[in-house]
């Protein structure tokens, strides 16, 4: 984590993912007077996830704005305000609610600059919460990143750690393009080192979380931690796994991925989204294309099975990808 600006003489500060998000937003708003935060219950209630708590107090009701339950309106607010000089930070509570505003996202936000021949600039950041694991059922648990990554004009990042959550939010807010920051609800309490003050995590740069020799595990968001656990367990089977946290899905750091696979000769991709037609397909396709001669085994993919997210904990647990399944899939593919 070269980006950290820790003083040598002080113990690194630990912070939960949820608080790192708050700090990221706060830093972005402190440095940029044209930035505001708008979304459902972000002001008075501090968001249903708690990550905007205190912002109303610091920035006031002009800059931290509760909206009606109107996702098209909210997203349009972001587009129109960004196109006319503001730097909106839009909170879309649950990623599942993209369904309500995909027109504003896909047809307006992502395309405006291009359609206008470059005569628009849209510095808008969208925060939204993805992932299952809380028995919130099929409409509050999805990971729909592939809807977004398929859209030229958007950037899409997905922090796995508190450090990255803060740094990527700051980078997103400083970016003059629309950036989606995909947060993960099961990670909210996750603790990690988070420096004070503003710092960037570069958008478009993957992070090698762990070096290894004969397998590359590629993950993002919470699945990074499952991949790290899986890497531990795989040692037992003689597999020394490298773990890459993509951090940014679009733009994608293909170089880091390919370099790793050329070294390890094997790759397994992990995401929480439904496996079929998910972002892992793009990753596997690129790896087999760009490192074909280096591969000793097919590129594996671990993702959710082909069903909506179920409610019952017994079903949800067997639905969600985890370290155990990563290990099993790796062993199957590698025949160990």
């Amino acid at each position, binding site marked *: 984590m070269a980006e950290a600006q820790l003083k040598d003489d002080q113990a690194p500060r630990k912070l939960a993912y949820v608080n790192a998000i708050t700090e990221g937003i706060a830093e972005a708003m402190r440095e940029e007077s044209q930035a505001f935060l708008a979304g459902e219950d972000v002001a008075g*209630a501090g968001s*249903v996830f708690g990550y905007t708590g205190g912002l109303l107090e610091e920035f006031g009701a002009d800059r931290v704005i509760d909206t*009606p339950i109107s996702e098209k309106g909210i997203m349009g607010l972001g587009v129109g305000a960004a196109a006319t000089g503001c730097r909106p930070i839009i909170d879309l509570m649950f990623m*599942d609610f993209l369904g309500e505003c995909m027109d504003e996202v896909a047809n307006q936000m992502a395309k405006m600059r291009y359609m206008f021949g470059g005569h628009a600039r849209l510095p808008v950041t969208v925060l939204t919460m993805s992932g299952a694991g*809380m028995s919130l059922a099929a409409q509050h648990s999805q990971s729909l990143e592939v809807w977004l990554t398929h859209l030229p004009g958007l950037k899409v990042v997905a922090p796995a750690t508190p450090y990255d959550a803060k740094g990527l939010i700051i980078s997103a807010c400083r970016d003059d393009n629309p950036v989606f920051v995909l947060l993960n609800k099961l990670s909210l309490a996750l603790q990690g080192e988070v420096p004070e003050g503003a710092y960037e995590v570069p958008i478009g740069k993957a992070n090698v979380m762990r070096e290894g020799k004969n397998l590359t595990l590629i993950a993002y968001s919470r699945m990074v931690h499952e991949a790290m656990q899986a890497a531990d367990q795989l040692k037992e089977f003689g597999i020394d796994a490298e773990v890459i946290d993509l951090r940014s899905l679009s733009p994608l750091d293909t170089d880091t991925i390919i370099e790793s696979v050329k070294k390890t000769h094997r790759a397994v991709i992990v995401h929480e989204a439904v496996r079929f037609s998910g972002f892992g397909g793009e990753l596997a396709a690129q790896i087999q294309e760009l490192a074909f001669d280096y591969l000793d085994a097919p590129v594996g993919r671990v993702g959710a099975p*082909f069903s909506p997210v179920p409610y019952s904990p017994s079903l949800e647990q067997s639905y969600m990808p985890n370290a155990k399944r990563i290990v099993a899939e790796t062993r199957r593919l590698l025949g160990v």
Partner: protein
Amino acid sequence: MAAPAIGSMTFRYAFRGSFTDTHDCFGYARHPVRPDHPKSPEIGGDKPVTIQATDAVLLDIHERMVRIRIFEEEAGKLMENGKVPGALHLYVGQEAVAAGVMAHLEDSDHITSTHRGHGHVVAKGGQFNEMYAELYGKAAGYCKGRGGSMHICNMEIGMLGANGIVGGGIPIAMGAAFSKKFRKTKEVAASFFGDGASNEGSFHEAANMAALYKLPLILVCENNGFGEYTRQDNHQAIVDVADRAAGYGMPGVVVDGMDAIAVYEAAGEAVARARNGEGPTLLECKTYRFYDHVGVRGMGLSYRTDEEVDAWKQRDPIKLIEEKLIEQGIITKRKISAIHKRIREEAMAAIKFAEDSPLPDPDGLLEDVYYVQA
């Protein structure tokens, strides 16, 4: 906000648009009577009541309300004690709306509901065993544990599901109403949704289409004054959601949503209009939730005062109807206690049933994604 002080209500609701034909509507806001809702002006009503509940209907409504209350009280305890997973949005305080509307509906009439859907299921005739089992995520639940609180449904009694998407049920109910007209039935559809949901595009599009096609639809807005933790005057610049009806060309009615009899009467007119092929109605019920947005105590945010909650509790819809029933000699206090006791026992037995039920088999995870032709 001051305490509700309705006093003696002779007429409990009023049209927000009288009607001549599909394409012309005029006359607005004729003296609605309502509880002391945020910013509501105080005005009296003068529309004569045409649909009066018989004693049997009043008892039926009361039974539905008590069933909801007890179901929810126990569900709230289960959630607060960590016995059930996920998020429960409880209906306590709003019982008069579900009961007053549902008393007009048959199993063949369809409803759609919201994240706050238990009350609608109970009022439509849902059984405690299958409902608690669903909250527990058990195989015996209405959705086999797949849906949980926010998707609880029962197609056999025309309950097209709670819905995790705010406003999500409204276009679906409109589609059900279309189907009823298409199939030339006398059935109706009703959609329940909140004040917050009335700001979603789905409400707008469905309302316009329902009015255009003159569909047998009752749009029941349960205005409890909040969308999550946001007060109504912070999410819309109007006082009465019913004012939106005129913009679609349908009647809009405001009714005291704590008064089950008033709801019954207003809903009765709307349902009659629907069954007679006269099209949809927007029925706004001014109500209040006694619990927090999620669970009972919820996140403990201070978005409303205890005084406000207490003031509304003075007009507890169950207390109101019980007072009326006793006053009119329809039932005794003792019989009421017996009803509560019976239903509480039913709930406790159902909770035990749910607890003892098996979880769904993970091997069946992928079942029911598609209908598989036999």
